[in-house]
């Protein structure tokens, strides 16, 4: 049982962090195009690998709170901007935009790099990846089984990625502005959670607070949408 502890603990912890990472990658990839998103994710993993290699178990000395504060704040601003744009377009479809709003995003993949998608993906991977690395180092070093702990984390990421691949096809069928709306909600909720955690706030319910934030932001967004539609008529 003692030998199983690091692998089970890192699998569970990395599943949670991995879900957060994949949710952001999936949202940005489907909305802005996969090429730049995957490039950003790859760059994030490369920096993460470099940090892990350079620091080893000293990784725990990296000030993760400051990183959370900055990345969370930026994601929250970004999420609110996306929500704003989506809500205005859904509530008041311009004749020229009407068809675009109902178009899905499958064709929206530019040949050149979309730095917007790149940066969001990079930050998401770096922050969540660092948290996973911290979990691996903490549990692995404690049980003197770093390799086993890392295997648990990799298994969790593979499971979460496989689930994301299954969901991806379904997401592509959602109209563009509704997809922007959904991604805006996800970015705002995660951003709020991380930024406050970076400020050393203790959320009621821990990580489960993200679900509460998602619920509150969804209800708020639909409330604003109803108000916008009323004032349009």
């Amino acid at each position, binding site marked *: 049982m003692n030998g199983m502890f690091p692998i089970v603990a890192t699998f569970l912890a990395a599943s949670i962090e991995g879900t957060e990472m994949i949710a952001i990658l999936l949202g940005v990839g489907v909305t802005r195009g996969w090429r730049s998103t995957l490039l950003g994710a790859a760059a994030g993993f490369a920096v993460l690998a470099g940090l892990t290699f350079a620091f080893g178990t000293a990784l725990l000395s990296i000030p993760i709170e400051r990183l959370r*504060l900055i990345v969370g704040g930026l994601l929250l601003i970004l999420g609110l901007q996306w929500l*704003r744009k989506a809500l*205005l377009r859904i509530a*008041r479809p311009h004749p020229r935009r009407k068809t675009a709003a109902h178009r899905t995003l499958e064709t929206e993949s530019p040949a050149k790099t979309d730095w917007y998608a790149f940066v969001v993906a990079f930050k998401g991977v770096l922050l969540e990846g660092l948290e996973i690395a911290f979990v691996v180092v903490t549990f692995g070093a404690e049980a003197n089984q770093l390799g086993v702990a890392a295997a648990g984390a990799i298994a969790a990421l593979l499971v979460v990625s496989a689930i994301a691949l299954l969901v991806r096809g379904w997401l592509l069928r959602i109209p563009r502005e509704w997809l922007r709306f959904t991604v805006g909600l996800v970015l705002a909720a995660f951003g709020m959670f991380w930024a406050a955690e970076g400020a050393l*706030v203790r959320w009621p319910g821990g990580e489960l607070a993200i679900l509460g934030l998602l619920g509150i932001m969804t209800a708020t967004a639909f409330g604003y949408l109803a108000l916008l539609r009323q004032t349009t008529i």
Partner: protein
Amino acid sequence: MHYIKAFLTFWYDFIVGDDWTIAASIAAAIAVTLWLVQSNIDAWWLLPAVAILTLGFSLWRGAQAE
């Protein structure tokens, strides 16, 4: 020079976007949260409250502008 300008423009668009009030109010809310936490007040409610109010205000500005 061109690359520096493009770099700065990218970050301006990324952070400020269509409405500068969103970035400004979230930055202010984070600063106040930090201050409250340092004063031993667990201000988890501040960011959600500011985000909701900011979104409403920004939507109102956007609707007026259209």
